């Protein structure tokens, strides 16, 4: 196994060549906040919360899709990064319609956790209050409220790469960009959906939810997804 050595926040780290900065930092137990990254599925670098500074490179780089290189010097928690992360979270709140008080994911939401982590007490951006974000409850068991979607595409990837059904996709672009089911059909009419619920477990916010579940009952079983991936790769089928 070829090994790459680098430093992350002044700590010496040795990892398998080809690892990402995020994997290397996990190995070194240095926490980098993430939102679109989900263990077990491919990375797309969509949310930019994992941005880090690399000495000698002017741009900020997303840790989840940047490979380590020999002698690389990474900084994960500079004041500049802290400020940008806070701004990203503020923008996510200002962009959609996040009314936590009436959200099924309240207290079980990765976006909310991130807001606490970056120390957001309000957003400095004007709320957009988009009026065109719809709610689809045509599926027998699940629903999607696009007001709370942060376009992380975790649902898209989990359905495609783990379940193999590829029900979800991203449609349109810019401010009207949204995740769709099937060929932009009501979710309930998409035959490919096996109703496995993996997208529900993958969604970091209250966007995809189980019908009839109250706030108090809402919980996500991310471990189930990781279990499925390990099971597939290593043929270990017990948990």
């Amino acid at each position, binding site marked *: 196994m070829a090994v790459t050595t680098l430093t992350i926040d002044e700590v010496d780290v040795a990892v398998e060549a080809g690892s990402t900065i995020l994997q290397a930092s996990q190995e070194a137990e240095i926490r980098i906040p993430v939102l679109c990254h989900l263990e077990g599925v491919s990375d797309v670098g969509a949310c930019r919360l994992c941005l880090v500074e690399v000495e000698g490179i002017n741009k900020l780089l997303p840790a989840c899709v940047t490979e380590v290189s020999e002698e690389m010097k990474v900084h994960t928690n500079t004041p500049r990064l802290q400020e940008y992360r806070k701004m990203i979270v503020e923008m996510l*709140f200002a962009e959609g319609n996040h*009314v936590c008080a009436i959200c099924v994911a309240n207290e079980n939401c990765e976006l909310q956790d991130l807001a606490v982590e970056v*120390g957001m007490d*309000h957003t400095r951006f004007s*709320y957009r209050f988009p*009026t065109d974000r719809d709610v689809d409850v045509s599926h027998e068991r699940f629903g999607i409220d696009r*007001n709370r979607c942060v376009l992380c595409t975790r649902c898209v990837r989990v359905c495609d790469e783990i379940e193999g059904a590829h029900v979800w996709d991203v449609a349109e672009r810019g401010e009207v960009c949204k995740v769709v089911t099937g060929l932009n059909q009501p979710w309930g009419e998409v035959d490919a959906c096996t109703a496995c619920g993996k997208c529900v477990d993958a969604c970091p916010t209250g966007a995809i939810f189980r019908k009839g579940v109250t706030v108090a009952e809402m919980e996500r079983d991310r471990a189930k997804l990781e279990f499925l991936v390990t099971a597939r790769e290593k043929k270990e089928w017990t948990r």
Partner: protein
Amino acid sequence: MDKIKFATIWLAGCSGCHMSFLDLDEWLIELAQHVDVVYSPVGSDYKDYPDGVDVCLVEGAVANEDNLELIREVRDKTKLLVSFGDCAVTANVPAMRNLQGKTDDTLQRCYLELGDDSRQLPHAPGIVPELLDRVRPVHEVVSVDLFLPGCPPSAERIQNAIAPLLEAKNPDMTGREMLKFG
């Protein structure tokens, strides 16, 4: 030490934040040793907002012309303005009418489409305040000095935020205990 001039106001909110404030129970007695309540819908009967207020908690979003007028006056006359609860900080539930579109669409929906036998749009200038085009959080309208999110913030969180202010110190607004929305 002189008593602090303390006020609370109630804009577009459900009064839940004020109820949570009253949940401070016996600490209210402690608080009363340090403050003069100079204006508050739950703590005094004064009709006019006085000059030279030290601390004011603002519950609710800015949704109509009365809210706008009051918050501007309050800002002018207050040293430390606290956005009190999610409605003040994010516009929260009252702002869900923004998703309906413009004010006219909202009124149309509520009073005509969903109305009973006596369908009519409310219109009484000088008595019923006109709605603003958009419900907005307080800091989009005037400057805010401290944000206390939560729907409502728990009594404990309220105490942790205002107790330091009484000694002219800033509260430590970090971590889930102090910051969480919803």
